[in-house]
């Protein structure tokens, strides 16, 4: 598997991607083999169903939101995800190296991914309804609709600085400023 996959991925491409995203060669090769294993139909790009087929994702309450966020952040084409775009989105999750500054990967980019997952209709705001949908998918079966409403209301209130009933990206960032995003949203990519 290792040999055949690296043949299909040319060295110049690896160099380019490495330059853009700060992944090293081994990581990129590994991600590529993962990409290929996800791309069951061998089309060279991923569709939503390919990602949703990952079994663990099915039991993750936020599974479809994550997949959506991938596709939204990837670029213009909403339906297809090629390898480059795949890696670019994953670059958001690299651990932040405090010494180097990487535009692809800093705190606001990480928060952007999280925000994208909430913002279902992509208008740049999380409304109360969108939030309730998310909360419901995370928690839904275990609390009453009443409690869900109240919790959602309270959470929106806490973050909503300008009191417009929805949360913009800036408000979201402000609400998360106490959380250690760099630590929580980083994944150590294996070599």
């Amino acid at each position, binding site marked *: 598997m290792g040999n055949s996959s690296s043949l299909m991925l040319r060295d110049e491409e690896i160099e380019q991607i490495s330059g853009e995203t700060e992944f090293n060669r081994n990581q990129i090769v590994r991600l590529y083999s993962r990409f290929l*294993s996800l791309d069951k139909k061998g089309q060279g790009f991923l569709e939503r169903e390919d990602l949703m087929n990952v079994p663990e994702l099915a039991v993750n309450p*936020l*599974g479809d939101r994550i997949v959506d966020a991938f596709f939204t952040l990837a670029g213009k084409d909403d339906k297809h995800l090629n390898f480059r775009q795949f890696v670019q989105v994953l670059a958001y999750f690299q*651990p932040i190296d405090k010494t180097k500054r990487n535009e692809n990967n800093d705190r606001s980019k990480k928060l952007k991914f999280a925000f994208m997952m909430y913002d279902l209709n992509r208008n740049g705001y999380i409304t109360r309804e969108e939030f309730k949908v998310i909360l419901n998918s995370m*928690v839904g079966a275990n609390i009453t609709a009443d409690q869900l409403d109240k919790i959602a209301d*309270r959470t929106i209130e806490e*973050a909503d600085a300008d009191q417009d009933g929805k949360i913009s990206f800036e408000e979201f960032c402000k609400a998360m400023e*106490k959380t250690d995003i760099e630590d929580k949203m980083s*994944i150590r990519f294996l070599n």
Partner: protein
Amino acid sequence: LLLLLVSFTFIHCDSTRSPRPSGQIDTPAFFDRAFVMRFGRSVERVMRKADNSNGSETPTRVHVAELKWNSTQDILIISLWLLLACIAKLIFNRAENLTKIFPESSLLIALGLGIGMLLENSRVDKSRFTLDSHMFFLYLLPPIIFDAGYFMPNRAFFKNWDSILLFSVVGTLFNALAIGFSLYGLQQLFSFTRSFTTFEILLFSSLISAVDPVAVIAVFEEININDFIFVNVFGEALFNDGVTVVLYELFKQFMVLDEVLPIDFAAGTAAFFLVAIGGLIVGLLAAMFTAILTKYSDHAVILAPLFIFLVPYMGYLIAETLSLSPIIAIAVCGMVMKQYVKGNVSATAANSVKYFTKMLSSSSETVIFMFLGLSTVSTFQSGWDPLFIIATIIFCIVFRTIGVILQCLFLNKCRGKKFSMVDQFILCYGGLRGAIAFGLAHSIPSSVSAKDMFLTSTIAVIFFTVFLQGSTIRPLVNLLKVERKEISEPTMTETIYGKYLDYMISGVEDIIGQKGHASLVHDFERLNHKVINPILMREHAKTEHFDATKIVRAYAKIILRDAMETTTEGTIGRRTTMRKEDGDTSSIARKRGGRCSCETDQSDDSVDHNPRCPLSEANLEQLYAIFSKMFDEKLDQIKELKKIEESDDESDEICDDYMKQARRGSIMPVADDVAAARRETRLRQVRPSPLVHPIEEERARVNSRSKSTINPPTKFIHQ
């Protein structure tokens, strides 16, 4: 005088009884020859008289009162000691100048030292008031470790499990061997006052290399360091007991063998695994047992806290009996037990558990440190070897530093969250030794000729670390600007988003096919909910695949807090400073102060309200009237909400009014009442309730007396 009386007593009052010179009275060991003080003499005389009058033939008159010293002295003495220790702690807490420099533990040791010197001058038999290691390990240590395990930040702990394991096993091993061999090597160059063999010195080094959890808690809790460092130092301190105990026992046995064969080393390694893993298993079993017991204790609610204390303590004792690591057992029990038990007992019971645990551990700690000081005086008579002591201290520091640096170098290659230089420095500096080392040193067999030298060195090292490192760590932490623990109220935002991010990361890890920390936690959670929770937790707490109880609990807490804050506010118009943290992201705080846009008179901070503003005098009166009517209803509803979100409180109200109890017939409500109450709350849960709207609707609702939902009163005032 009280001090003197008290100080003549010891905790191990079951010591041998020495025969009285008079032969008449069989008094316990307290009243032996040592009682030469005039005060003691006079007390004696009174005793003798009282006892004489009991047993003699001569007819006496009826006593108005008599001194029943004999029957109460043991427990009276213990209580007096405890009281003295706690009063001392109280005084230290008020003497702020002192506590700013020295940690409390060092002050307590100093106090013990002072008392010890007092007794020294009175020629009391010294061997009597030392810290009995039996007493220490069986009674004083378990509460502290249990408290530590129960309140361990589990999340941070599991995130750092790799570093904790490395530090506690490899680090301690390295320290023990390095210190032992260096001291042995040093012996070849300079000779110490006592000579020792390899294994004897290794015995010593294994007990001196262990970081002590009691000392670490005592010092680190005061300086409020961030969770990351604390959990690393503390986790190491807790779990290195497994290594220490094994090494100690191993070398103790090696000492008596004529020759050491490889099979003995193999047995040692096997012993280590057995001790550590055995302790772990005992802890897990105890935790499960407690959880199950609390699950079924809903009809006898008072028993639940009792189980929470008793079963882990049994676990400790059982592990000790089976020569497994009791510290690991009780710590693991506390850590694992917490999440299940919290779902099974009511909030009040959980609160009382918390207070009682803290009380026990705090008093144990106090007594331990004081006795440490006390014992110093007696043990410092012989075996004082400055060279050995200095060498030990230097080696301890040096090897700890080397160990930490090397391990962090290795860890930083493999971990996401790296140890910075400052972190590493604090880790080195936080290697405090404490009473466990002392207890172990005390139980070194007397066949070891160097025992007294080891004992004094142990005490010296403990003093050095607790006094010097303990007192300088606070300024150092400030100097190095180490991150402190955030003592902020949890907001809904953090609770929900925290969970949300976990799921997100878990999902991404699944996409890239890597089993990272988040997805493992997620897997465990699923296992927990499918399998473990149904067994260990009560019916209503069972959840499908996400444990919402934490979010719901957080919400209930926040709402209650808001409600309380609103009602306890003085003048509504003044800006409140309820929140301790500045820059709090919650906009609720902003709403509460400066609520209306009326002019504020800057000079005396009063507000001149527009008559139409709801906060003007007349409207305020009306508001108060509505508010108090509303509030009564709200309070009832808050109680209901509490019932819905926490376990059914009707059954958990322990009756503290004897009249009510007599009427009811028992402390707890009858089983039928409980079932009925539960049914009621379930019904109310299902029925959806309308949300609260502006004032007019409120008023209408109050008048029509229909049920409204609970919203913090701030909402209607604001609108």
